[in-house]
């Protein structure tokens, strides 16, 4: 299966973000998360944006399944407040993280929106210990009058259906 060769519906894509702009947006987001710049991260989202970290692969309806994260705007706000509060011992401080996002594949281009699939590799460090994590990430990025916004981010860890350790930061 050659996913890169999947035809994109370019006719409706007039106002969709370009692949290059979308990739730069994703990199900027990744950088923000590694720097714990969560206050700047919140306004990256659309009002109805969903941030999802599932516990299973190949799920179509996340709302009827158990997820690690399934955040709407209110939960993202609460999550960031918690992570920055200084009162959560797993995030004060959290593990240090360094992540890269690459292997971008445009999945769909619609009116004003592009959906990408990508690979994220991340290393976290805390308490004398390094851990490597990998995930397939789907991003839906939309053009708005305010610039590009994140409308959907689904972080499917390579071992999402197996055990994790406590994660005191954002994926």
């Amino acid at each position: 299966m050659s996913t890169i060769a999947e035809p994109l519906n370019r006719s409706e894509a007039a106002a969709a973000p370009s692949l290059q702009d979308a990739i730069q947006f994703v990199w900027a987001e990744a950088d923000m998360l590694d720097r714990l710049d969560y206050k700047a991260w919140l306004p990256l989202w659309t009002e109805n944006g969903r941030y999802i970290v599932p516990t299973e692969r190949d799920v179509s309806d996340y709302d009827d399944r158990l997820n690690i994260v399934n955040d709407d705007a209110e939960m993202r706000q609460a999550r960031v407040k918690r992570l920055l509060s200084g009162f959560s011992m797993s995030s004060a401080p959290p593990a240090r993280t360094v992540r890269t996002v690459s292997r971008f594949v445009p999945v769909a281009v619609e009116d004003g929106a592009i959906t990408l699939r990508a690979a994220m590799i991340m290393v976290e460090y805390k308490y004398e210990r390094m851990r490597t994590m990998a995930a397939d990430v789907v991003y839906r990025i939309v053009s708005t009058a305010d610039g590009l916004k994140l409308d959907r981010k689904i972080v499917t860890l390579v071992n999402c259906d197996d055990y994790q350790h406590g994660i005191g930061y954002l994926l």
Partner: protein
Amino acid sequence: MSTDFATLVRDDRVLTPMYTDEAIFEEEMDRIFKSTWVWVAHASDVPAGNTFKTSWVGREPVIVTRDKQGKIHTLLNRCRHRAASVCEKRKGKASVFVCPYHGWSYDVDGTLRKVPHINGYGEGLDTADYSLVSLRTEEYNGMIFATFKDDIQPLVDFLGPAKKWIDLFMKQGGGYGVKTLGEHRFRFPGNWKIQLENTTDAYHFPIVHKTFLDSLDPEAENVFQVLAHGGWVEDLGNGHSVMVMIPDLIDLEENLDAPIPQRFEELAKELAAEGMPDEQVRRVVRAVGGSGFNLNLFPNVACSMAFFRVLRPIEVNETEIMHVAIGMDGGPDAANRMRLRLHEHFQGPMGFGTPDDAEGWERVQRGARAGQDLWIMVNRGVDAPEGVAAPGHNAGDVSAETGMRAAYQMWKRMMTA
């Protein structure tokens, strides 16, 4: 083994090597996890004939199966030929388990069905001698336990007074029955008993879970001020205990006339709009909120407010925890969706509660590298409120370490038996 286990546990304290000594851990796997009832599954994990779920009894991988007659079996997940695992799926349907190595096949009750090229054994292989090893398995109100021991007491006697609390907990089925909805798994680098203690530790809640409390509406935040409602901890025997944090939520079929809490108003409206009668709406909504207590069952499972918490010892300083989300079997989708969202809010590797618990437990293990001669203190507690605990049961206030003391006395009993 030269350790005198009795010296590690006093009435109100345990010695630090309980968390750190590999030799003690090895003995625990034998004297505890291979010698008592260990939780392996919920009945809804194997809902019909020819369904299975893989699980663990201590460190030993098992397959829990339900046969066509409805009987549940717990089978060691190892081929009787040369030991390959015969199932590597979490759960599913199967009418046969075929070893991938040489093709020996087993029925769901463990019976060896077929051996390829059996004539290669001449007259020497009686298939009846090579069933998958089947453990004694018993069930109480949907909770399935297995044991390597044929001579220990029946499960119902082992549970004893805990049965009443299991029954109360299962009222979260809201009249539909309880069904598992998914599970979070996570590990922490620490000893299994640190987790066992935590399920009966209300004392940590307002400290460790301050950020969870801060994320709730004022009404819900008040409900979760678990030290403030006159709760208690009660020793239920055999290492089991119950910690009641919200006495108003002990029996979910009572107080149905109470006003619907703010955070459930929308759900109540949605259910009413679907045509559900008011009384049932109230019952379902109350069930969605979960129970007000943690029932800690020695050694590996808890019915914890609104989920099952299952521990699995990996090594002396590594433990895997499973937080099993539960809902209503055939209940309204909206209600089960809310259960899932509430579970995700607190539980799991990125929940608002679990990562801080895990960090706290890791800090215990890290700290326990110092002072092997020092004691872990579990002496906290004043009297339980008058008349709340069952007559004759040892009980303390909600933040008492009564449940930990109960578990450690059971530990001592089993380790010195």
